[in-house]
């Protein structure tokens, strides 16, 4: 862990309980987690271990049942709706397993959708260039492969130069080759823009490209280990 850099997100004793249909699920049972500026953290764990729930709470998509959460020293444990929106809008970029592109907008327009919101956003074309999709900018989601759609989602996430990029199973719906391209883009964003990135995956080899690997099991943090030999995505295989 790089302790010279500041902590951007600090979470303490996070508990999250929610209902899924008629079943009550305890997704998090007292989690402490820090995200350091500029690091790339991989969160590993089996299905139902609580990693996606943690990511959603870190990104302000969900609120914890109990516990505290702070971003750059600002408390977000009991946020107002507006504070959460402002937090997501100003600081967070999301990448989802199923891309969640707006089907009625082209690649460029999906990126512009977020650029419209951010004062310091880069031009949408630059963001598409960053993910290597300039040539496909006028295509609709339905005209693109899964990998291309995910790269559009990354461009959409980074266009506003977020402080933190949160990725939920970004390669989960992709084959290995396409997945690697997506990981390379994430790696480049982390290194070039110095964006803090947290990646949730149950694909263990991806951990090799991380600065730090956190493992969750049954709603708790099982291990939290630094990775002194961070590899390039091209060296990762699964």
């Amino acid at each position, binding site marked *: 862990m790089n302790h010279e850099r500041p902590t951007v997100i600090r979470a303490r004793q996070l508990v999250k309980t929610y209902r899924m249909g008629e079943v009550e699920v305890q997704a998090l049972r007292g989690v402490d987690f820090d995200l350091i500026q500029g690091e790339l953290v991989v969160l590993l764990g089996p299905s139902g271990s609580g990693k996606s729930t943690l990511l959603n709470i870190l990104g302000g998509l969900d609120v914890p049942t109990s516990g505290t959460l702070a971003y750059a020293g600002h408390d977000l444990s009991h946020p107002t709706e507006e504070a959460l929106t402002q937090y997501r*809008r100003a600081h967070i970029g999301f990448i989802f397993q199923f891309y969640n592109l707006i089907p009625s907008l082209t690649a460029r327009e999906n990126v512009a959708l977020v650029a419209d919101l*951010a004062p310091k956003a880069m031009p949408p074309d630059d963001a598409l260039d960053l993910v290597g999709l300039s040539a496909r900018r006028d295509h609709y989601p339905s005209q693109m492969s899964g990998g291309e759609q995910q790269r559009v989602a990354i461009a959409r996430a980074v266009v*506003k130069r977020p402080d933190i990029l949160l990725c939920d199973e970004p390669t989960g719906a992709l084959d290995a080759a396409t997945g690697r391209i997506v990981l390379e883009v994430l790696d480049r964003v982390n290194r070039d823009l110095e964006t803090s990135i947290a990646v949730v995956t149950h694909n263990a080899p991806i951990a090799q490209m991380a600065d730090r690997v956190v493992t969750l099991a049954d709603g708790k943090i099982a291990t939290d280990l630094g990775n002194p030999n961070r590899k390039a995505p091209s060296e990762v295989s699964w």
Partner: protein
Amino acid sequence: MKTLQRKLVRDLWRLRYQCITIALVVGCGIASFVAAVSAGASVRASRDVFYEDAHFADVFAHLKAAPRPVLDRLRELPGIAIVDGRVVGDYRVMIEGSDEAVVAHIVSVSWPEEARLNRTIIQSGRPVEPGSPDEIVLSSTFAETWNLMPGSTLKAVINGRLAKLKVVGVAVSPEFVWASEPRTGLPDPWHFGVAWMDRDALSKATGLVGGFNDVAIQLAVGVDEQETIERVDSILEPYGGLGAVGRADQPSSHLVDQKLGQLQKVARTLPVVFLGVAAFLLHVLLSRIVGTQREQIATLKALGYRTGELTAHYLGFALAVTALGVVFGLVLGVLGAKSILVVYARYFRFPSYLFRFDAWTIAVAACVAIVAGVGGTFSAVRRAVAIPPAEAMRPEAPPGYRRTPLDRVYALVRPVSRMVLRDASRRPWRLLLSAASIALATSIVLAGSVMGDSVDEVLRLQFEVSHREAMTVTLEDSRSWQAVREAAHIPGVSSAEGERQVPVRLRAGHRTRTTAILGIAEGMDLHRLLGVDHHPLHVSAAGLSLSRPLGESLGVQAGDDVDIEVLEADRRKVRVPVAALVDDFLGIAAYMDAAELSHFMGEAPRANVMLLAVDPHDIDEVTRRLVDLPAVASVSRPSIDRGLERAEEGDVLVVMRVILALFSAAIAVGVVYNNARIAFEMRSRDLATLRILGFTRGELAFVLLGEQAIQVVLGVGPGLYVGRAIGSLSLKTVDRELLRIPLAVSPASYVGAACVVLLAALLSSLVVRSQSDRLDLVAVLKARD
């Protein structure tokens, strides 16, 4: 927000068929409102301009005869602006090539024109020349009916002498916007028309040189009309004045006002119901469409869009759909109003129809639609943003099915049917709302038929059950019963009955009404008095029985007294008790036992109307013979009257029925197409899975459309019931003094209403089915997991 706006445009385009069907529903609601309001405003404006331009009088009086100097006494009364003394009379007219008994109401035209009231507006030809002995101008309805035009000639029997008259022009007059035959009050241009003739020529022909028998008066501004009427009456009474009336009671003006009032009532009832229905559907459908975008809303929220921004985005969607509906509504409404005016123009003769658009009321209609649409969207967006985005983006938990007692029933049917039934019973409110929409669609078609069916029923009662005579003969004056016995001997006449009708003014306190007392004799067979309950009316042997609305307008009940002033012969006055208020169904009338009426009139039993039963083959021959009798004022055939009345009511009702059928079809399509489309979008994964498991396209369609079928089946029955209720509400818009319509709905109307809705539902289902047939299985299944 440029990109979000682009998304709005794309979404509108993608959902264009749903948007159009919803806009059509809104459009029909607004159209019916706009049509009724604009038609009313247009007729009112046309009437006001016409009355103003043609110097329509304020007070009208008819008398036996008076010398012209009496007019100067009238002019000296306070508050009188213009007095126009005229000679008028009803004369038999012979039209070349016809044996019909036609009566022309001939009105004198005085000079100079500035001193004339109720001026005619010439539509073709020219006015009569001053002093010309044989020129006439005809009313437009009459001229068109008989195909008479400038250059035509006709003969008239005036004062027992045959006069040959030359038609020089065709005109309309504010006095005869609705030219109705005085006895029946019906517009019957085959038997009754209006003509204008030079005053000197008409005076000479009628033997009224230097005199007048009718007067039209214009009042100065701010003068008390009732007071003036009383003063005019006191001057004219010695000359056989029949009592002056104000403009509101002038027959044509009264009818125009009544029809306008009816139009206004129609505008305030049915279209308001329709607008409510459209608003309700707009609310339900938009909230469902926005509901299907739950995941996109969550994504946008995750990307940092504020609830307010998202709400505005979807409100934009609602506003676009509503605005499209409002535009549809305005266009359809203006077209509807114009077609209503075309129908009205056939009966209300104004020189020109002005089109008026009541912007304020229409703005209200548009606002109602916008509030409903925005409200539906707002609540759906609120619901969608209330869920944390993380949860909204997660695939929805499997819907909460649980075992219910109904499962035993469901176990009896095939699994696909079980899916349909479980789905329907899991969301009972949604099912009920959809069924309610279908019910409203059904009710609107039926409501449109109720008026026609009920009018048919009234006509059947009037002309098949109550009036069974083939011919009604009105006599110039009352005659002894001998005349009736003679009529019975005319070859072709199988029986004849006489009736005594006495024109009277009834007074109770300060309220007065003019009507006729009908003498009721035992054993009258050709004219049976019927009540709204279809049973024979019983008329008390002592005292006066009054139509209920007449009694109510006089403020009297059984046991109260009314003063009767006879408007003929010696104008005797007498006070009699009211025996009962009776529920007859047509017009306002007073009934008295025939013997008591003779006694009260101080005469032996007499008749002034004869009812004849005639063999259908002999009707023309009998008419020819009657027309030649000097005592006969007019001959009418109820069956022809019936046809005319049917034609008039029919035109309006046909327009209404077509509009309503289109409206309800739009609703049925709007509801069924949108529900099926939304179900299709929400369940495409289930459907693709079923297809892969080996289900056929037909079975898929069954799963998709089964619930729609349940809604339609649940909705149609109650819809028929509600339609009957709305229809009976619409009957209340008919002037009660004109008609008390018993509610009647024919089986054909029930079947027709159900069919319109079922067909619309079936067509929409077929369209959605063809879309489901083209479902791309792989694409759907790859989209998630």
